[in-house]
């Protein structure tokens, strides 16, 4: 065991590099997924069939095909047609497309969940369609989306482990290397579990903070500052008359 630990200690810089690659894939993929989710989610609600049809198709296609296959297709098949992408760009693109398709459904559902009266009030004030979405509907839908987006983000993090197979040196790759040098599967994969869990936990904390802030902006729940304060806040002054 002490051998294992010293091997791990020596390999820590490489673990750091692995974590950086995994985070690049996760955050890059998540950013792309969020943009696609918003575009495809809004597109899925469009009145025009020319917008709605393609949006629905893209969502169904990327939701319905395996992430591994998409990743390999981008990395090994596209070059056949003369498009060669760096491994990292490929990984981010595959993760973004796949989770963007799932996210589109979250966006669509959350927008539909904003009460009809909010749309009507915005129309009554003659706010234009873009303004109505940006200033009235999306801020409210955002608060509804976050818990589901957190789920997707964690899945995306774990999905990013596939990047090892398109030659990226991410956390998963590091675990493989550790297993080879220690010859101890139990030790290496347990380290792997813990590293992924730690990363997922940090991401979850970040998303929870976003959720608290989003809800507070809608006038429900405490502010982030109140939550982060060490002493618990008495839950009396909040809530008000509805």
């Amino acid at each position: 065991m002490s051998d294992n630990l010293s091997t791990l200690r020596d390999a820590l810089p490489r673990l750091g590099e692995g974590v950086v690659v995994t985070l690049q894939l996760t955050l890059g993929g998540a950013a792309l997924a969020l943009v696609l989710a918003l575009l495809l989610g809004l597109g899925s609600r469009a009145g025009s069939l020319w917008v709605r049809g393609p949006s629905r198709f893209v969502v169904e296609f990327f939701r319905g095909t395996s992430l591994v296959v998409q990743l390999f297709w981008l990395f090994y098949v596209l070059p056949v047609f003369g498009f060669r992408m760096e491994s990292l760009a490929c990984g981010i693109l595959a993760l973004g497309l796949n989770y963007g398709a799932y996210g589109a459904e979250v966006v669509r559902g959350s927008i539909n969940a904003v009460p009809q009266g909010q749309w009507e009030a915005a129309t009554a004030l003659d706010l234009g369609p873009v303004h109505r979405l940006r200033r009235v509907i999306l801020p409210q839908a955002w608060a509804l989306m976050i818990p589901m987006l957190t789920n997707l983000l964690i899945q995306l993090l774990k999905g990013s482990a596939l990047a090892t197979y398109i030659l990226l040196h991410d956390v998963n790759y590091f675990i493989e290397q550790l297993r080879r040098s220690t010859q101890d599967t139990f030790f290496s994969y347990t380290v792997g579990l813990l590293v992924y869990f730690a990363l997922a936990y940090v991401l979850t904390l970040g998303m929870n903070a976003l959720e608290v802030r989003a809800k507070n902006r809608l006038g429900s729940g405490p502010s982030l500052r109140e939550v982060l304060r060490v002493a618990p806040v008495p839950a009396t002054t909040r809530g008000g008359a509805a």
Partner: protein
Amino acid sequence: MPETTAPRDAVPSGTAPAPARATTTVQGAVPAIEFQGVVKRFGDNTVLDGLDFSVAKGDRVTLIGPSGSGKTTILRLLMTLEEADGGIILVDGDPYTHEIRGGKRVEVPEKRRRAVRRRVGMVFQQFNLFPNMSVLENIIEAPMHVLGLARAQATVRAEELLDQVGLADKRDARCTQLSGGQQQRVAIARALAMDPEILLLDEVTSALDPEIVADVLGVLREVAETTDITMLIVTHEMQFARDVSNRVLMFDHGRIVEEADPETMFTSPTHERTQEFLRAVLGD
């Protein structure tokens, strides 16, 4: 409550303000609202079946009738929250959502539709304030982004209106911290901030506790007394209808079965359906 009604000359109405209590439609004048053969169906249910009626500028018209008689549908058509299946609606003589061109009923382009919609404001039963904005932000959002007022200018006007509805101290409050009655008064201020020529009031007190209904109605009474805004009111508050409106229309199955001034309507209705309805509502 101080007198803080803003001058109405900023409104591009093009006509001199009608007297606040016009009692009859002036012959020859362009009505503020005109329905011509308006049809509205929800599935197989025909709510309005070729409805014709008009409202003169400055009129305060209360629509009464059993639920499902089409009153709220009329307001929603005027706010473009519903689309008519037939007929046309004119606001100040301008076609709103549809017009007759070359003998055919065609849609009015969105740009012109918006120009007409801008003259119409609405207060809802469920208030519908934006929870992601403060009270002040709710009121200045549309004046800034739709009318193009500067923030400072919009804020001054919003503060006047908040003062008028008795909520000057709630300027920076979140909507969720307000009671229902307060929320509805903010919603009234928000609608007035757009300087509407026509104000639609859709059962604005129905979601409120009885003891705060009077506050909201008091605010609306003052609006009625100090402005010449044309009002269409759907309400079950018969006393309010009596105080504020100069015309009452009784609807049944999408048709006007009786029309009279409030005094006549509430004391000596002639139509059998009106008598039945008022007996049920007034509870005697």
